[in-house]
């Protein structure tokens, strides 16, 4: 089963594998990442089956689906974090900027500079707040002078909506903040290296509702600068923040659609069942 549906309910633009069924004409649709026939095995077990999807720039793309359907696995393919898992085998194309991400001549460290990640449980470095932000840009030789570092830290924290709360305590350890603040710190850390794409793996599932709302607003603000791909268990969150939504089921990409259409008039029965809560 591939992503294009057998019988679309309404006329769609000429679809090729990977493009959403309904494209939002006002939104940006330059490609950020193109995935073609991606398959992934954990040892003998196949976790991703023939995934075809186009991720657009400066949009929020949400990946939804029941537990164990492969959304997080797919997300990790985009920045090659699956390389850290021993028994993983990947076939297929993940293309960014015209280059195959999994090719031998692609340096995964370079990839991860352009594709950042925010994890489910906030994991700031056990360093000061300042060093949390300044560490990666310094390592990538983006800044060297103290003044430049200060500016970078301030702008990253402002973009993450955290500056006002921490500007006086930049020396304190990042782990001394509350959960929501830690997650915003992780977001600030990710945007400090000025990536093209930010991957977010259920960023608010460990947070309280108020922090969740703050981060959702943040995603809306950040999409003007970055392409965001987020995995979420929370369908309402996807409906709130995402421009495009992809529905995964048992390792397959069942439907990929503009969010409004996905939630009001999904193309496939499986997606409809999931969205209306018949299973989950």
């Amino acid at each position, binding site marked *: 089963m591939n992503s294009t549906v057998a019988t679309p309910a309404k006329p769609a633009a000429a679809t090729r594998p990977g493009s959403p069924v309904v494209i939002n004409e006002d939104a940006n649709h330059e490609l950020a990442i193109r995935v073609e026939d991606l398959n992934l095995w954990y040892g003998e077990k196949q976790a991703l089956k023939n995934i075809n999807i186009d991720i657009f720039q400066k949009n929020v793309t949400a990946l939804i689906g029941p537990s164990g359907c492969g959304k997080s696995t797919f997300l990790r393919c985009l920045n090659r974090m699956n390389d850290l898992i021993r028994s993983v085998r990947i076939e297929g194309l993940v293309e960014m900027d015209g280059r195959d991400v999994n090719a031998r001549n692609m340096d995964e460290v370079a990839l991860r500079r352009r594709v950042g990640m925010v994890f489910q449980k906030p994991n700031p470095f056990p360093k000061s707040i300042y060093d949390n932000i300044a560490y*990666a840009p310094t390592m990538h030789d983006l800044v060297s002078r103290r003044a430049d570092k200060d500016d970078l830290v301030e702008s990253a924290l402002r973009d993450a909506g955290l500056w006002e709360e921490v500007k006086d305590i930049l020396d304190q350890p990042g782990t001394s903040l509350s959960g929501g603040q830690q997650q915003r710190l992780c977001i600030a850390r990710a945007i400090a290296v000025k990536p093209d794409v930010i991957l977010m793996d259920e960023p608010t599932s460990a947070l309280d509702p108020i922090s969740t709302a703050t981060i959702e607003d943040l995603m809306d603000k950040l999409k003007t600068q970055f392409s965001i791909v987020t995995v979420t268990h929370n369908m309402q969150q996807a409906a709130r923040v995402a421009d495009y939504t992809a529905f995964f089921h048992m390792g397959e990409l069942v439907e990929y659609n503009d969010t409004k259409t996905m939630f009001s008039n999904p193309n496939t029965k499986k997606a409809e069942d999931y969205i209306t809560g018949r299973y989950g």
Partner: protein
Amino acid sequence: MSHSFDDISAQLKGRHRRTKRLKFMSMGALALAATFLVVFIGDMVMRGYPAFQQAELHVPVTYSEQSQEIPLAAVEEDVRDLVSRGWLRQLPRDMAADASLMGQTIDRWVIADDQVDQYLKGHKSHLKPKQTAVLDRMVENGTAELKFNINFFTTGDSKLPEYAGIWSAAMGTILTLLVTLAFAFPVGVLTAVYLEEFAPDNRFTQAIEININNLAAVPSILFGLLGLAIFINFFGMPRSSPLVGGLTLGLMTLPVIIITTRSALRSVPDTIRQAAFGVGCSRWQVVRDHVLPLSLPGILTGSIIGLAQAMGETAPLIIVGMVAFIPDAPTAITQAATVLPAQIFTWAGEPEQAYVERTAAGILVLLSVLILLNAAAVMLRKKFERRW
């Protein structure tokens, strides 16, 4: 059909009794161990503290040409057997160094012979009645006293017990441990980092892990044979030197350091590594900037404990020859040396009575250093402990 509380309590009496019995048995075991420890340390202290005192005699010493030739002539006849022969032997040297001494007779404190020392401390001695009479008179006059034994801490081994000290053994131990540390710490930590962070998880690395664990349990004397065969016979390094001793102990400590370092590295949560990879760190940067700083307390603790264990090892060092008679403290790692436990071993085998207390005092010194090392390990751990 439920039971009332009384029915249930009746059944529980037996179980509560057994729990109490277990509790008392474990407290008893602890008390037994503590008793042994207290008795051992108490016994050592009782035996050893006399070694920190040394008998000295306040006698007139005549510096003349005659006494320069025959030092025995420098003191009066009745105290000639009571003054230490070693002290008298030094006389010509003192006179050569200080010309103004010639022709003077000075009343001074002089180190006494070890038999005098033992007599004053109340042990059996080989002194004849005439000599003990002289001594008793001197004690009454205040010209024979037990003073602080500075020689114990400043001199090396000697055939004369009154001049025997642990300084050369202490220097030997320090030099040996430095060599051990310089060899085992970097090699051990880097090996553990490689095995834990870089090596693929296959049969080969698993075999290595099993073998390292086994090496940690090998009897230490076998490392001595290894050191003899490789370092002394094959490489031709100087026998009985801290270099060979340190390398041998280093081989012995290596498995311990590798194992404790690996466990410290494993205790760093994986989320830290993932965050570091996520911002684009290379594997080596992840280890150097994130994993190693966090695992440092564990690594240091393990290394210090391994070092403390190495410090107390005698068997392998006996095989590589560090149990020789070493009167002068070594100044380089290629000179002959001995170590504290070996010195204790040597003194324990000496016939003179005076060595009994010195053996016990040596044990006390060794124990103090061990306690200090372990306390340092605990302190370092507390200092570097970080929350994540």
